[in-house]
């Protein structure tokens, strides 16, 4: 495909995996060889039509791709815009995470690895990893903060049903960032047969690049779908929520060479781009929430999947360049957005995805999105996992 090779060439990170001053490979020496092995395997696979064939088939016949592009009919009419929803909530396991995980699992298999290692916060990436492992006959070890295990009991059970081992992480804040640290630690001791299957466009090179490439299917599909759905062929705005930033990166990848304004939406309490400072965490340089001493802060958002103090390096770079813009929304706006989308369109989206919806609602109100605009919004996942949270709040 044209766009695919174009993007690899034009936007593959330079040198040591740099996106401008961000990215890189800040890992213990013990992990350097493993990162290089992943990088070489990925370069090789990504240039191999056979690999693409395998992956594309899995995405189609297993994960349910292409996902639909749904015009939000009633909301569009209310808002006076044309709002299109890219429905990652319809993908197998309920979010875009499966795109990345199928790619990495196939890659791991190609590398001869038997075991997937993953971190998870809300459990979505963990469930996706457990799923891919089951599908390909591999084993999976998922690290999850003790606090998240309590909050997301159901996803823990799903992972175990799928045959994965879920390892509670009791250190630090006992949430995603600690699960990430623990997964890295575990990877050090198991590089032989273990493959670290990272859940977003973060971590040491080549992960931010590789995960974006596996997620660009969102943007590529949406690009094609917009071309039939919109008179203007490309939308005026392309909006996605940003935790680590993988659904946004995958979406943006399809539109970075168009005039569309690219908008990433962060949670107010976990806005690495809006409130973070350059720093190094989990193997890469990026904008990170940290105190004046350089200690990493905890992120606090109603959406567990956005509770990460850092952000993918490419986003930090796009923000500095001004090519993408990043805004924040509050938990209250997010809750309102979930309800409005449910009532207007019959779609219960994930709290994460609702960040993007919330921004659109506000931006139409304050004129940031002019009447008559066309807006593509990636609905990264479904809300089933959040029903307990919503119930407790209502």
């Amino acid at each position, binding site marked *: 495909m044209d766009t695919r090779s174009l993007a690899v060439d034009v936007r593959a990170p330079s040198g040591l995996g740099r996106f401008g001053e961000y990215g890189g490979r800040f890992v213990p020496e*013990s992990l350097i060889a493993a990162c290089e092995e992943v990088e070489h395997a990925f370069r090789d696979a990504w240039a191999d039509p056979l690999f693409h064939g395998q992956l594309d088939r899995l995405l189609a016949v297993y994960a349910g791709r292409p996902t639909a592009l749904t015009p939000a009919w009633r909301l569009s009419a209310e808002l006076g815009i044309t709002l299109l929803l890219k429905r990652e909530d319809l993908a197998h396991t309920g979010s875009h995470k499966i795109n990345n995980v199928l790619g990495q699992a196939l890659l791991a298999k190609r590398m001869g690895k038997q075991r997937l290692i993953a971190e998870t916060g809300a459990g979505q990436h963990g469930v996706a990893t457990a799923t891919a492992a089951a599908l390909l006959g591999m084993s999976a070890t998922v690290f999850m903060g003790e606090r998240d295990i309590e909050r997301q009991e159901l996803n823990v059970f799903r992972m175990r049903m799928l045959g994965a081992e879920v390892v509670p992480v009791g250190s630090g804040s006992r949430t995603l960032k600690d699960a990430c640290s623990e997964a890295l630690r575990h990877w050090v001791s198991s590089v032989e047969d273990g493959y670290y299957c990272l859940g977003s466009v973060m971590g040491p090179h080549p992960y931010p690049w590789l995960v974006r490439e596996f997620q660009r299917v969102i943007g590529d599909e949406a690009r094609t779908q917009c071309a039939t759905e919109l008179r203007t062929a490309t939308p005026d705005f392309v909006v996605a929520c940003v935790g680590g930033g993988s659904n946004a990166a995958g979406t943006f990848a399809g539109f970075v060479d168009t005039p569309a304004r690219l908008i990433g939406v962060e949670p107010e309490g976990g806005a690495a781009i809006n409130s973070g400072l350059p720093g190094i965490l989990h193997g890469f340089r990026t904008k990170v929430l940290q105190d004046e001493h350089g200690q990493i802060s905890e992120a606090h958002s109603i959406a567990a999947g956005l509770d990460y103090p850092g952000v993918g390096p490419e986003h930090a770079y796009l923000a500095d360049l001004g090519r993408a813009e990043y805004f924040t929304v509050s938990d209250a706006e997010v809750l309102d957005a979930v309800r409005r989308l449910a009532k207007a369109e019959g779609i219960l989206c994930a709290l994460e995805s609702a960040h993007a919806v919330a921004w659109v609602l506000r931006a139409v109100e304050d004129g940031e999105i002019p009447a008559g605009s066309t807006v593509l919004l990636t609905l990264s996942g479904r809300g089933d996992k959040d029903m307990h949270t919503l119930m407790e709040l209502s």
Partner: protein
Amino acid sequence: MNALETRTRETRQKGRKLLAPYVTGGITDDWTDYLRAYQDAGADLIEIGLPFSDPTLDGPTVQQASDRALSRGTTVDGILADLAKLDPAVPLVTMTYANLVLRNGADSFCAALREAGVSGLIVPDMPVDEVAPLSEAAARHGIDLVLLAAPSTTPDRLRVIAGHSRGFVYAVSLMGTTGEKRDLPESGRALARSLTELTDLPVLVGFGVSRPDHAAEAARYADGVIVGSALMRKVLDGGRAEDLRAELADMRTALDAIAD
């Protein structure tokens, strides 16, 4: 040659195996007592951890120690201020993660170390590929930036690491995090041997050196050992400076027995 490397080379020269105990800075109110105890027990240099919230290369013991220090309100500045008050007979080497080093820029960080009397620095998540700017800053301030090598490091990289390391080379004995081990990991031996062939810098073995016999064994193929978790376990369990001194003295004895 800076102070640290001068001392490590001299010590080796004397036929003495280097003993480098570790302590997490700020772990207790009177944490510098542990430094004195280490010195009394025959440490040749002392490694001081500047606690970071997300210590990805550390096992449970050092993680816990870091958490405890941080929850006491410990800061890098505070630790350095405590160190500045000492007049240690052995070189001090700080060990911390990249985010703390770069927070206010590598140059001001190294300057502050120097001012506090620190002569070496170890940054485990800053591999040789990423190290250039920090190397330069360290050199400017007379700080020896110690690099780590691991069992998975390729011969080519070993050469580069050995070439860029200052003070000594830190041979990570195993594929894993810091932490006590029942047996000394075997993988350290080959690594230390390879390094010794590539460089005349002293080579110290760390990670999993938990008991006097481990120390003795490692010292057969390396110039010395770094002992961390085994000591920090005692500190976390409420061990006083005197207890730590005794513990380390046994290691010293074991090492000296080898050297003879």
